[in-house]
């Protein structure tokens, strides 16, 4: 079992001009890796992170889009697995951070903590699917996963994290959205 922040530290070493879509605990831990204009946190409704990521991937096929989605969010928008597989964006990498917990909503368990998300993604039709529970293995393959032709799906099995501070006004700041829009609208 891994820790989310450790996974993200590894991931950050391979992220340059990619857009990173993240929400809730994943957004907090990703932001801890450093401020960047190309972070996209304003999802607006739980579960829609993967849909926003798909829109970005379709709109900017020249850029890679990385979605860092929690398992609670993932379960709220399972249909998007099929939608993404059908749209088949080559530039989309979809991580699901599986800790079995609605961490931002009181730490309650998801309905089935043992659900096999990688198998779901494979069955939906993702081009490449991974399932990581060992940090050394993830470290070894992270660059390949991030840069592979997609759509790519990877489950990161992590421990439930410690208490986090959710600074939603900062995450969802309108200035952050405006800066991202300006950057992405530029060709």
């Amino acid at each position, binding site marked *: 079992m891994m820790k989310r922040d450790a996974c993200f530290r590894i991931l950050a070493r391979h992220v340059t001009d990619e857009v990173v879509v993240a929400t809730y605990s994943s957004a907090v831990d990703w932001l801890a890796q450093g401020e960047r204009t190309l972070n996209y946190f304003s*999802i*607006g409704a739980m579960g829609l992170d993967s*849909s926003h990521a798909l829109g970005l991937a379709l709109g900017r096929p020249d850029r890679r889009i990385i979605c860092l989605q929690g398992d609670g969010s993932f379960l709220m928008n399972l249909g*998007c697995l099929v*939608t993404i597989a059908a749209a088949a964006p080559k530039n989309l990498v979809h991580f699901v951070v599986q800790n079995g917990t609605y961490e931002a909503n009181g730490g309650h368990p998801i309905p089935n903590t043992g659900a096999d998300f990688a198998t779901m993604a494979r069955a939906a039709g993702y081009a490449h699917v991974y399932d990581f529970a060992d940090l050394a293995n993830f470290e070894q393959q992270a660059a390949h996963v991030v840069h592979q032709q997609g759509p790519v799906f990877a489950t990161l099995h992590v421990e439930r994290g410690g208490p986090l501070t959710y600074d939603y006004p900062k995450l969802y700041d309108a200035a952050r959205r405006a800066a991202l829009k300006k950057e*992405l609208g530029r060709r």
Partner: protein
Amino acid sequence: MVEGLDADLVADAPDPIVLAGAPIIAAIKAAGVEYILSVPDIVTSRGLLRPIANDPAFKLIRVCKEDECIGIACGLSYCNKRALALIQHTGFLDSINAIRGVAVEYGQPICMMIGLLQHDPYTAPRNSPRYGVRIVEPILDAMGIPHHLINEDADVARIRPAIDDAYANSHPVALLVGRRPS
């Protein structure tokens, strides 16, 4: 008449007033919409979705549930790409939280063309005997979302300015389709 797998299984009721599909599609194109995001709706199935699916000018993304449209359209708007969610009013109702968060609170240009399922086009939607139809406009009003009824050919002129305004001023808009386009 389309037959086989492409045939609509629900027949149009006889209706002397015409709402043609082709001018609606032309208006959507004229508004610069490139992406159509859709869950099928029987009101707009034959007259809009089917021709759109065969029109190379559009990129049709078939989604599993209507709230996906809201996130996808938002992501596209960050890339200066225009999209239209072509959905049924039941899907609109199912997507209220996504519309609340993304379209209204974040002020994003989410454009929705909403078929009013089982609506009597000779009745104003807010007076519809169908509860689900009756509540659509009051909900849009409560959320501060501009809306336009596309009920006959003369209404089609409202489509392009509504979409242009949504993108120019970054706000959502709803285009309510009151009868089946031919």
